[in-house]
């Protein structure tokens, strides 16, 4: 089965571990938060402020702010832009991402 990594003959360095809501997932060097979560089969990591509905990537280029996520206790970061580092702690962002 073909995959983008295979198609582009990517040979990234070894995968590293990050966590999503306490669960360990693997990420590749160079992957954004959104890319690692998609690869782990996760498509939503925020719930909206009013209706509490799930959201994930929409525009993929930093314009729409739908993919906001909390990383290392900092809320409202765009998952499609933010590169991951070993040990990063990703949390699903509820509402504004602030305790209120």
């Amino acid at each position, binding site marked *: 089965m073909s995959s*983008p990594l295979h198609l582009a003959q990517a040979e*990234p360095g070894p995968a590293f571990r990050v966590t999503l809501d306490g669960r360990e997932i693997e990420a590749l060097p160079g992957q954004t938060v959104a890319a690692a979560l998609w690869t782990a089969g996760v498509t939503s990591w925020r719930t909206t402020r009013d209706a509490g509905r799930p959201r994930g*990537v929409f525009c993929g280029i930093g314009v729409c702010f739908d993919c906001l996520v909390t990383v290392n206790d900092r809320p409202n970061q765009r998952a499609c832009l933010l590169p991951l580092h070993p040990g990063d702690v990703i949390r699903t962002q509820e509402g504004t991402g602030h305790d209120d």
Partner: protein
Amino acid sequence: MTDRPHLAVLGAGPAGLAATAAAASHGVRVTLLDAATRAGGQFYRQPAAELRARRPQALHHQWRTWERLRDGLRAYVTVGAVRHLTDHHVWCVERRPSGGLTVHALLGPEQEDPVEMRADAVVLATGGYEKVLPFPGWTLPGVVTAGGAQAMLKGTLALSGRTAVVAGTGPLLLPVATGLAAAGVEVPALVESADPKAFVHRTRALAAQPGKVAEGARYAAQLLRHRVRLLARHTVVEAHGTDRVEAVTVAALDADGRVRPGTSRRIPCDTLAVGHGMLPHTDLAETLGCRLDGTDVHVDDEQRTDVPGVWAAGETTGIGGAALSLAEGHIAGRSAAARLHGTEPDPRAWAAAAKSRTRLREFFAALGTVYAPPAHWTEQITDDTVVCRCEEVTGGTVREAVAELGAGDVRTVKLLTRAGMGWCQGRVCGPAVAGLTGCGLTPSRRPFARPVPLGVLARAGEHEDQ
């Protein structure tokens, strides 16, 4: 060195790279600022360096053009003629009372630390972004913009699922569908609302671009090879799912652009890549006070805006694709170089670029009449469909503001409903709100091109990096 004129080029896509090369080769010191970590823009978006992709061209078209742009930039950077600043998110350009301009940027990916830079002139090559018109279920995770699916694929080699329906209208859908299929995604349907017969009426403008016709034929062959079914004159009526998209309902359109009753069918999928054309990024131009024609930055034959010292090239002056961006960028760079040296430019120096600019503008004007959302697309927005994704404002709320509170423009709807007041500042919902309001999409006059920390704003102008 420092007394050479200094040009800031904003955006490292095809237009910005062409402008950079043209200006640098004519004795101008160029600083190229771009938000991404690697040059290329959206069209030539490169995989992150750490992914060490040995064959990124497998995800791209017109790779040889990219190699020429990339190698040119590298050569100018090596000899010190160009500075390429990556991860610089420009939020404002202002004219200095004493002449010249100041470029304000935030350093990414955190976008908290500011940097300021003076320039004698700027080229705005800020590109465009995708327009998506709402329908029930479009906020479900797994529903992404067509360009977003492609950006995630090209930039991070990531996919959101295994089965993707590609839908909407416009020339972008073809490379998105074939690109996803080549990357191993099953693409059961490409749902295009345009009528293929409309192309027949446009044969003169299309035939003037034999290269583009051949490109279309190549895509058609790839669709066949990957068994992607083309559903022309069709539209997505609804995306289904609870926590993510599980299927879409598509239906045929009648001659008036309305959904034909009894034609709907359900297609299971875990991804819907959808787009209805492109819009130019014009925030920086608007803040500078540049004249806009509709949604496009107005430029003259030299790609000059009506603000002294400010040129614009590429999608920001009107959507027209990578080849047109290259031509416009080249002309902008040549013109800026000549004028920064105090000489009147000779348009004969860029005659070839001007000729291809004329042809490509005609071609895209013809395409624009063929590719169009269904005429009655607003009828697909039910009253409980979220229209403003940030503020969760529904179609019903917008309609109430229009029908019962008398709102007649996007700004009044925003003040009454909060539609367009959220993080994206109406970039996503703007076309839909305009459609529901029954008015045209007008520039929104945002003061800044992106969110700026208050502390940065307070200190702006105190210190400047030369």
